[in-house]
């Protein structure tokens, strides 16, 4: 594949787009792990939302 005399610009554009997309994916995955972990820690310490307590079997 010949990208011509401006190949560097094409490669740079695709590389930067890849970095932006990868950054967004990593941020959302890491944030999900962090929030899930914090929620689990709080629930282990006995904290539960009223709606969650209401949903528990009696």
């Amino acid at each position, binding site marked *: *594949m*010949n*990208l*011509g*005399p*401006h*190949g560097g*610009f*094409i490669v*740079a*554009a*695709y590389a*930067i*787009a890849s970095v*932006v*997309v990868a*950054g*967004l*994916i990593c*941020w*959302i*995955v890491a*944030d*999900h792990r962090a*929030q*899930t972990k*914090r*929620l689990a820690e*709080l*629930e282990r*310490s006995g*904290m*539960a*939302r009223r*709606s969650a307590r209401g949903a528990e079997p009696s």
Partner: protein
Amino acid sequence: MALIDFANPNRFIRLVDRALPWLVVATALFCALGLYQAIVVAPDDYQQGATVKIMFIHVPAAWLGMLGWTLMSVAALGTLVWRHPLADVALKTTAPLGAAFTLMCLVTGALWGRPMWGTYWVWDARLTSVLVLFLMYLGVIALWRTVEDPSRAARAAAILTLVGAVNLPIIKFSVDWWSTLHQPASVLRLGGPTIHPALLMPLMIMAAAFTLLFVTLQLGAMRNEILRRRVRTLRLMQAANAGAS
């Protein structure tokens, strides 16, 4: 299931948990197909040569940057008018995604402009109005981080979003209203696309891939925001219990 049923955050999270794996697979497939079409199959442009390949990421990124603000405007109405419980969640989580896609549009546009126009940047109406869109996204993100009370932050961000929506038609029609170095619309125009089908098809596939990616990231970010608010509520309850004992 009625639309109002999605107002329940628990039900929304269950729906997202079920939908996300399918969306991830669909996004990956469309991205792979789109990149293959854009890089391998699409012919070079008769004037621009291979640099036309930058269009396949620049144009979808621009569309998603504008779509993000459009979604935020609908969410702003949901916050101010209907007081939908998930509206300000959507408003908050769309801003960083929209900012990222707008930044991608600006950077890839600069990299396309240098070999074609001889300059990375020019203060013409299209480029400047897109830069304003990016700065407005940063403004909304900053506002959310500045105001501590989420409901007050949501109202302020909703008003700023609706005011900023004025910029959307300016971006779209800037190439018609003013003399710009940026080319006029060649896909979304009244007379139909002026772009050759051999280039239009990969562009549409990449646009579909970017849209699927945006939806997937948005649903994931909304789920995270709902969990973050649960954590905040439980911490407030924990602090209140500690204060009472």
